[in-house]
């Protein structure tokens, strides 16, 4: 596919905004699934940055893209384990609310 010269700053800005939205979600959402989702969002933002930076730098190349691939793989593994944990916890506690999983109460 053809290459369209998109300003680097705009791409990075997209990544930064996505990252911060993900951060906010991860910090505030009550549902454990949504927290995981927000974390995925942050990972995605990081991926965008990786792909963008693979064009820049002293030696433009594919390293950034390969890194993004690795990140995607690790994220897949993470979400799988995370969701499995969530299911286990849900079976035990009948809830997926983060606040209800607090062991430090009383």
């Amino acid at each position, binding site marked *: 596919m053809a290459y369209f*010269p998109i*300003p680097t700053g705009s791409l990075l800005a*997209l990544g930064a905004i996505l990252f911060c*939205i993900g951060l906010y979600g991860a*910090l505030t959402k009550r549902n454990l699934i949504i927290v995981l989702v927000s974390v995925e*969002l942050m990972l995605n933002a990081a991926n965008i940055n990786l792909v963008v930076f693979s064009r820049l730098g002293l030696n433009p190349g594919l390293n950034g893209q390969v890194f993004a691939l690795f990140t995607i793989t690790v994220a897949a593994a993470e979400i*799988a384990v995370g969701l499995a944990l969530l299911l286990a916890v849900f079976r035990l506690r009948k809830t997926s609310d983060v606040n209800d999983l607090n062991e430090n109460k009383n």
Partner: protein
Amino acid sequence: MLAYLNGGMVVFYLLSVCILACAVLLINLRKVIYMALALGGIFLGCAAVYFLVGAEFVGVAQLLVYAGAITILIMFAIMLTNHEAMEPALRWTWRQVAAAAAAVLLCAVLLWTIRSTVWPPSPADVDLNQGNSNPVAVGIMLFRDYAVPFELVSLLLIVGLVGAVILARERKEEDE
């Protein structure tokens, strides 16, 4: 400013608006299942952005893994748990304020930094793929330069798979 405007950029900005809209929806929707749908939108948009910047293989992987597998997995998880769960209405507790402040300020700092940094112009004449198509170039890179990390990642996936199965398995009474 208009001089820089080309087709790709128009598409990019439209995509960006879509992605950010989905992200805002994700944060603001209250039904969990709708949130998952918004997440799918974000993943699709990101995949498109990868195509735009010439990273076709990453884009395809994004489509397959994120938009396909992960979104579906999350939906399954929602269905298996209390799928009618609602996020409570927004209340400005101290924690909410602190989290919002952290997010907004971090965003401001990052944007300001991006804005004030002079980025080198994108070298249009450099062929990142060195004559091959992008998937071929990525493939060569993966198996030549990153063979060991690649294998390690496959190992990680196996471990993740097994671990997920063990964790999510229904506990029988007899296995303590």
